[in-house]
């Protein structure tokens, strides 16, 4: 198949807040365009801090939120034209989500394997319980688990890293061509973070799944991603090949983000005592706003 897997054209989302009086509009996502080609699976990273519109963008790609303006095409189909449960199910077979906090994504009163079996029942031809278990087990094997480890377990019985891998396995059952992962490692411990990020590489290389990886962690983004966009207040400020952008950021905001990343190489005492212009400014106002920083940054 030719053509883009996913294409966004001038996508915006505006939220209204306030009641009858003093209504204000808030642009969560502002005129975002990019495309992911079908023939080359890739890890596409969206970077930004909280409030930059990353999650709204993810929800629009998952067709959970309609954009106010612009169009999203998935495999040539306009998401806004999708009608009915059947079309939705066909779309979900191709695009699967992974959420930030696995403890919130799973109902604590339901057994974890139930999610896997239900997904297999809804999205694969398997019908008998043995077939369903086999489908779940195949997906779990891809993330380094097996059905024996999760059968009958409740979410609290698994560690955060295991649970997040179960969430990824669940997303793999329908055989999607794209996974949207919204901050998948921010709630996971440092030692397990790499196992999940490594898993994304494997999915891309072996299963040819494209991954939209949403994060605020520049170091893992550099490690895993092929292409990157940096968002600030709903707008894309910089985009391109991940290594090129992160090694040599051009936009002042990208440079500020990169300079704020703490290097793990120890500098010893005093490295943080230098007071940057940014922090001076942030303390001068009770509501520090990143957008005021522009003139001061290089």
């Amino acid at each position, binding site marked *: 198949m030719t053509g883009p897997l996913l294409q966004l054209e001038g996508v915006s989302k505006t939220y209204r807040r306030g009641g009858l009086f003093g209504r204000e509009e808030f642009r969560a996502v502002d005129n975002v365009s990019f495309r992911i080609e079908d023939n080359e699976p890739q890890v596409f990273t969206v970077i930004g*801090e*909280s409030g930059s519109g990353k999650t709204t963008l993810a929800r629009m790609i998952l067709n959970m939120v309609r954009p106010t303006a612009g169009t999203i095409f998935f495999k040539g189909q306009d998401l806004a034209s999708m009608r009915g449960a059947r079309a939705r199910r066909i779309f979900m077979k191709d695009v699967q989500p992974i959420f930030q906090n696995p403890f919130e994504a799973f109902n604590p009163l339901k057994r974890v394997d139930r999610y896997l079996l239900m997904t297999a029942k809804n999205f694969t031809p398997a019908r008998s319980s043995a077939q369903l278990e086999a489908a779940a087990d195949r997906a779990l094997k891809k993330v380094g688990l097996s059905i024996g480890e999760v059968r009958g377990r409740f979410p609290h019985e698994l*560690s*955060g*890293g*295991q649970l997040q891998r179960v969430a990824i396995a669940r997303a793999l059952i329908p055989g999607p061509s794209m996974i949207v992962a919204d901050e998948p490692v921010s709630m996971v*411990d*440092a*030692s*397990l973070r*790499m*196992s999940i*990020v*490594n898993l994304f*590489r494997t999915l891309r290389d072996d299963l040819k799944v494209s991954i939209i990886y949403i994060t*605020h*962690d*520049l*170091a*893992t983004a*550099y*490690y895993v991603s092929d292409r990157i966009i940096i968002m600030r207040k709903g707008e894309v400020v910089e985009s391109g090949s991940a*290594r090129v952008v*992160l*090694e040599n950021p051009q936009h002042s905001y990208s440079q*500020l*983000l*990169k300079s*704020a*990343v*703490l*290097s*793990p*190489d*120890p*500098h*010893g*005492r*005093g*490295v*943080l*005592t*230098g*007071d*940057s212009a*940014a*922090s*001076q400014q*942030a*303390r*001068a*106002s*009770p*509501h*520090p706003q*990143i957008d005021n920083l522009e003139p001061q940054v290089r």
Partner: protein
Amino acid sequence: MTQISGSPLDENSYVLETRALRAYYRMKYFGIDREVRAVDGISMHVRKNEIYGIAGESSCGKTTFIKAIAAAIRPPLEIVAGHVNYNFINNDLYALPSKERSAIRWRHLSYILQGSMNVLNPVRRIHKTFEDFAFRHMHMGRSEFEQEVKRHLERLRLPAEILRAYPHELSGGMRQRVCIALATLCKPEFIIADEPTTALDVVVQKDVLAMIRETQSEFGSSMIFVTHDLAVHANITDRLGIMYAGRLVEEGRTADVFSNPMHPYTAHLIASLPRIGDIHPRNALTGSPPSLADPPKGCRFHPRCPLAMEICRHENPALTTLAEDHRVACFAASATVQPTSDEKPQHPEALETVR
């Protein structure tokens, strides 16, 4: 109020010392005893004017350890054995009557906690929160106290207007700064910081860390800084202790621990850190951390350890000084490095084999 103890404070004196501290959660369900050994024999000390970092993954006992050294113990958590000594009380914290203990809190021993929204009372303006926390410890009149609060904010370069604000009017980073101001108002000798920047964005995080560092060095306080993010430790702590399954497995000067990690767990943690400019593949550890209710025998890391030997399965390695100011609990590391013979361990308890 002057200092309670008369002991002189020089650079090398300890402000906090724990000896073979054990804190267990003891529960009884339907007649079955269950014991979770969250802190199992930790001996360490924190020196004057230093930031001591504690790293480890979740459920390794970090928070329980903090609770134990702050005497914030509630059932089912119990102190089973060991001592917690602060030099400013010249005594075991648990030997004090509770009234004296609460007089020490905030005045000599204060905390910076993770969720700043939960620390600040949402229905009280910030200046009321300052009164709630610190007024009774400052022993001064109300107007004098207000002046002192304003001076303190000025010293930390925070605007005085925040005193009139409610917590929800401030951004997350600002709230965390207010919490730091709150915790340092009485110029305490000891500050406990539990994941103070984990919920913040990278740009804000760097500023808040810089503020913690500045404030700590200005007042000469000692600090325990807990986070699982090793990059934060690399940038703020002077010494670093690595915890695994309720025990301290390595401790040393932060730069030494990073440049020469001796415990395989530490070595793995440091090798797996992603860095910008390096796409060399990182391996993840297999397996998952042990359950503290039923930890493996011997060294608790041995089921996941690439260097595990026969002895690791039966005996628990003691925390041994293997280099200057660098203690490691690992048989494999001890076999390769000969401990300097003339150097005596600082505490005999430190070498006590735990279970």
